[in-house]
């Protein structure tokens, strides 16, 4: 069943410089969708539009058939969450404080988090393996730890759709695996994910559906095996790309090809 749907969405920050043009995307329930594409191809803007914080200049976004931009903001944020790329806040909140912010859409107007929220937050922190750091200031963490904190905040928000903007960019292989395994597990329990990434190999492993973008347009869209081919990826990244098959593991890997054949 379709959960979130963008239809013919366009956006530009400066007139005549289109960032997204006529993009359509369907997010079914219990799915993991990967957005691939070169730097500046519009992945982050598309995620922001899908999250309800950046109204598209043309086209519509619908959540369960309702216009996303007509849903009251707190109700919307209870259902759609956005995990932004890592950033540095001004004040030294602890990891738990930052993750607790994910509970904001569930609080009343002048409310503050209670015992129930604390339990959810502790579980989310546990899920990304940050329990030992939960009282440390967020500003003193490494890039990867900050990223895990924001992912935990997204999990604590308990939405039906979670949009992750390059979640694995600063993570070591073990943490990438941990986060994406959590994603797979939650996708089995009624959460859908849209993940922007620069790693086609991770899409091969975890995606149900892959969308490849180039200069603000969708150039390929389908199941990983159909989309992650040499021709599509080489065209999207404007460089030769090779797909290597390993019969032993029945696995594939995507590698850039060097000009001199190395």
């Amino acid at each position, binding site marked *: 069943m379709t959960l979130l749907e963008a239809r013919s969405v366009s956006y530009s920050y400066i007139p005549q410089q289109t960032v997204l043009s006529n993009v359509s995307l369907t997010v079914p329930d219990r799915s993991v969708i990967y957005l691939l594409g070169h730097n500046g191809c519009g992945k982050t803007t598309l995620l922001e539009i899908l999250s309800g914080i950046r109204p598209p200049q043309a086209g519509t976004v619908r959540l369960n058939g309702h216009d996303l931009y007509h849903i009251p903001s707190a109700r919307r944020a209870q259902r759609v969450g*956005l995990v932004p790329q890592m950033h540095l806040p001004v*004040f030294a909140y602890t990891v738990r404080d930052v993750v607790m912010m994910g509970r904001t859409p569930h609080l009343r107007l002048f409310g503050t988090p209670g015992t129930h929220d604390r339990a959810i937050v502790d579980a989310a922190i546990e899920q990304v393996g940050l329990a030992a750091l939960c009282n440390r200031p967020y500003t003193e963490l490494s890039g990867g730890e900050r990223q895990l904190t924001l992912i935990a905040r997204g999990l604590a928000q308990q939405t039906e759709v979670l949009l992750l903007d390059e979640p694995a960019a600063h993570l070591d292989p073990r943490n990438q695996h941990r986060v994406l395994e959590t994603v797979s597990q939650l996708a089995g329990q009624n959460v859908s994910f849209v993940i922007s990434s620069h790693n086609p190999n991770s899409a091969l492993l975890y995606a149900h559906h892959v969308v490849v973008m180039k200069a603000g347009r969708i150039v390929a869209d389908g199941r990983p095996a159909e989309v992650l081919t040499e021709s599509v990826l080489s065209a999207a990244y404007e460089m030769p790309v090779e797909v290597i098959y390993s019969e032993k593991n029945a696995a594939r890997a995507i590698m850039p090809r060097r000009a001199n054949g190395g």
Partner: protein
Amino acid sequence: MRALSRRLPGARVWIHSERRQAALYLLILLLPLPVAVYCIGLGRYAISPEEVVRALLDFALGRHDASAGPDIAYNLVTRVRLPRIAAAMLIGANLAVTGATFQGIFRNPLVDSNILGVTSGAGFGAALMLLLVGDALEVQVSSFFFGLIAVMLAYFVSRLYHSAPLLVLTLVGILIGSFFSSLTSLLKYVADPLDTLPAITYWLMGGLTDVTLDDIPALAAISLLGMVVLWGVRWRLNVLSMGDNEALALGLNPARLKLLIIVCSTLMTAMAVSVGGVIGWVGLVIPHAARTLVGPDHQRLIPATMALGAVFLLLIDTMSRTLLPAEVPLGVFTGVVGVPLLLVILRVNRTGWR
């Protein structure tokens, strides 16, 4: 706190338990009460804390027996010192908490409520009335009114520019503040150097000498109303301080929320300036001190800032009326004490913001 414990190894053990942090927080919240009782007793005519408490209880419960003859301690406590001390605490709490909220919503630890020109506007309003009329009530009303005008000008002028709303608002606020400062200079230039000029200059340096019991109800009403609202949004201030996009993604309406907070803080600042004149540094120093002690979470920071602001200005005001034979303007002492204090805090609290 964590930074403090790193500097002072002995403090580490004490601070790290959550229960002790809670105890420290509670101590900060209760601090204004004993300090107030102590400060009321200080002055030319010293009154013991027991007598102060007795006089305050008599006053609060309305059980003072006027027929028993003149009671100097009672009259001094309730008529002379209580209004002034209440004003110092309310103004201190006001300036400190608005400083903390402005730092939060502007995501800038170096701003306070003066940033939108409210102080300069209010200063101009007061100078104008001192020049034209010279009556205390009109000075107050005019300073309140011009404080609001300055902020509204800053807000609406900044709307004319269509880029980076927060940056433009801050820039325009500084410009509007400078504009009103220039107008105040003009007033000082044309003022009578023997009569009105000293009055304007003295008022601009801040002081609570002329505060009476009649000034308290309006000040208390606006302050308490503002504090309740700012306390109400304490959790949302955390989220707002992460930036607009995140606040939006977490289901808040940052524009509307910020407007509410700015209106509230401006009313509180304008009210404080209209009663006590221009008092600098409280809004900058106290939020930093509070953050060092209770951390950046606004759930504790907001109440702690109010309590510490009240205590700080009360101590400063007590110094200004008891330290030297003649009274020293408040704005002088807040700077003399506040700046070194801020330097120490920044040294202790090296991490936290950059």
